[in-house]
């Protein structure tokens, strides 16, 4: 193998690919990156057997070849190469030579026949704007369950509904749902992507623009865009039928400024007990919207917030961390909180925005 390419491009590609290498797995070769030089293209590949990634970068290839290098090692080398524009990479016998204007490095080359291929998906496909995909995932991923006991809910569920693509995640204590408008309706039954993998999708496509091509079959999904190919396994399961638990009645509604509520929550946080429990009291007749938190060791706090309230009185306890989480997905200045009964989930939405719905289960008093 012999080739020449831009340092910046290879730096960026390496940092992306290296994240997906397998850490502490039984097969050590998975912590490596496979580099392929063929025809006009230079490819970097890595996989942890749950995710696989392949990035193509333009290069001037003199001799084709394949090589396997420890991912961390290669990444560290390139992170510390400054002030150079071009790099040449060459394999001579068992060594890999990296040459720039100022540096000359050689590292050990591993045999490549044990490095696995990554699946190429053929199946149903559609395209989605990368900003839409990112927004969808970003709006809900923090609600997914962190435990592996139930793989269906330590995941994000994505399915089409009329003119929307719906993203849902829940850890069974709270639930986030985001609807993203799409140009046309896609017809598929829905996919369940492991939450850990969606974090990587977020990081990888966060700054890209344009359309991402999505392909999937029963077990696997792939995202491709501009020389980047990412594939993830899917969870073969059924996402809970969450629509049934969204309360249909709203007996009480309160609309308040997001910033006010946020400030109040931060103050309450100081006094919250170890269950992060705070109490919310709403009395529309007296126009009261009041947060109380209590901690035997510290003290007690009561904060009143200006709010537009209507409906019945309600007094409800919940985990304030869950409420804080959802503000990252609400872009409006005011938020609306809706209540059915004291033992039914609270619904939180941005004012006049129905695309995002957040549910929190109240706590026992």
């Amino acid at each position, binding site marked *: 193998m012999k080739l020449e390419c831009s340092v910046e491009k290879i730096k960026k590609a390496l940092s992306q690919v290296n994240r997906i290498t397998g850490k502490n797995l*039984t097969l050590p070769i998975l912590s490596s990156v496979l580099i392929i030089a063929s025809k006009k293209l230079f490819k970097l590949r890595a996989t942890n057997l749950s995710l696989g990634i392949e990035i193509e970068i333009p290069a001037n290839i003199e001799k084709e070849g394949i090589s396997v290098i420890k991912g961390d090692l290669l990444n560290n080398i390139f992170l510390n190469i400054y002030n150079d524009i071009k790099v040449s990479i060459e394999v001579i016998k068992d060594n890999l030579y990296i040459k720039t204007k100022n540096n000359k490095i050689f590292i050990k080359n591993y045999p490549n026949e044990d490095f696995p291929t990554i699946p190429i*998906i053929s199946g149903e496909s559609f395209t989605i704007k990368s900003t839409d995909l990112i927004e969808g995932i970003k709006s809900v991923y923090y609600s997914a369950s962190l435990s592996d*006991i139930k793989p269906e809910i330590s995941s994000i569920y994505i399915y089409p509904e009329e003119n929307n693509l719906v993203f849902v995640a829940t850890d069974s204590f709270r639930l986030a749902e985001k609807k993203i408008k799409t140009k046309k309706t896609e017809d598929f039954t829905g996919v369940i992507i492991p939450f850990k993998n969606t974090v990587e999708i977020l990081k990888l496509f966060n700054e890209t623009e344009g359309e991402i091509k999505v392909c999937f079959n029963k077990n*696997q999904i792939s995202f491709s865009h501009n020389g980047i190919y990412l594939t993830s396994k899917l969870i073969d399961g059924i996402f809970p*039928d969450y629509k049934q638990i969204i309360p249909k009645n709203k007996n009480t509604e309160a609309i308040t400024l997001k910033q006010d509520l946020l400030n109040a929550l931060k103050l309450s946080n100081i006094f919250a007990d170890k*269950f992060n429990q705070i109490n919310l009291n709403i009395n529309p007749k007296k126009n009261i919207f009041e947060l109380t938190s209590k901690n035997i060791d510290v003290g007690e706090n009561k904060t009143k917030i200006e709010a537009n309230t209507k409906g019945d009185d309600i007094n409800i306890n919940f985990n304030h961390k869950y409420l804080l989480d959802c503000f990252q997905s609400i872009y409006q200045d005011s938020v609306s909180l809706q209540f059915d009964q004291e033992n039914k989930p609270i619904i939180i939405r941005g004012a006049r925005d129905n695309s995002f719905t957040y549910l929190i289960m109240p*706590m026992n008093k």
Partner: protein
Amino acid sequence: MLNNKQLWDNCLVEVESSISKANFSTWFKNTHILKEESGTIFISVPNEFVKDWLINKYHKLIMKTFREFSDYIKNIEYVVSKQEIKTRSLSFPNKNEFTTNRELPLQDLYINKEDNLNPRYLFDSFIVGSFNELAYAAAQAIVNKKSITYNPFFVYGGTGLGKTHLIQAIGNKIKDKVKETGVVKKIKYLTLEKFSIDYVNSVQNNKTNDFKEKYRGYDVLIMDDIQFISKKEKTQEELFHLFNSLYEDNKQMIFSSDKHPNYIPNLEERLKSRFSASMIIDITTPDYESRLAIIKSKLRDINFLLPEDIVDYLAFSIQGNIRELEGSLNSVICQTQLKNRDLSINEIKGLIKNNIKPKKNISIKDIVKVVSDFYSINESSIYEKTRRKEIVKTRQIIMYLLREDFSISYPLIGQKLGGKDHTTVIHSCLKIKKDLKNSNLLNQELDQIRALFSI
């Protein structure tokens, strides 16, 4: 000949010796043989990555080792299949955190999205007694495809008698058969209401063709609660066309309703006749023995023991539908657990007194309304002095029911129904009684009407 498990174990031993340990444990962990079919072995693998790599790298090796054990194997297919859930030895690390937090009630909702069937409804849990044995036998015949004469299959009966259970069990059983035989069948269970909403949506979005195509593609269509079709004219028309198209293609259709199709009000004649041509079977209320069997099977399911005499008493005293029976049983179990001792018969009497059917508190007006609705007659005409034939008949039936089922005195009945003489009422009751002996249809009609009262 070796069975699949032995074959794969032998094969794995060979493979293990020829590749590195790291490679072996990464690629061959969690694999097993799914099945063997005419020389092709299907190997289950945990994900696409493994599938890809086995095909690319180890296929030759696996093939070679297979050949050593048996020479009939010609081909290997790799199938990604769901992993068995690990044993739940993991406990929550921070138990305290979870005690006060209530969970969103997400659990028990595991209805399959594609066919909409609830996997809880199975034939195994379906109790057969004289009240439903015919329906059960027909359902079995449909599943086993003994004949196509049971198409369409129409089952009717009061609420809470197991209609939904039966028809969903048919769907689930056919689905199981699909797995065995490999013949793919598209099954769909839905309620009529869903069908109607679907139709309205498709009209709104200008997608009626998609709608038609979707429903015509099903091999087995199960539709629940057909009675709600009354007055939905466009839905009736759509169902009519769907019915014809599925019938022509010999696709199985299964319907349930709380009434005989002839008595579904405002049902178009052509649909009525089509339903009537189907295999119509009713489910009645369970007899004492069946109720006993149902209670016992419920107790077995939840692993709970109740003394014989209590079980007996429950079966004897709750004569309504099965849902009520379950409800009473649950409250008895709950109380037993709470008090941590067996309950006495007297305590149980107190517990279930609300579930034992008292004579209904229905006013005469209500009865007139139900019966006149049933015969699609204007309620007020009952009270008028008209002698139109259909009204006279309805009025007589009302009188008969008031006398027989609600023990109201003849003069009072006469007075309430527009000032009739008590002898008129006596005559009416006798006439209906006589007609009942001769007319099966009238018998059925009365059963239907009585079922309406008990809702």
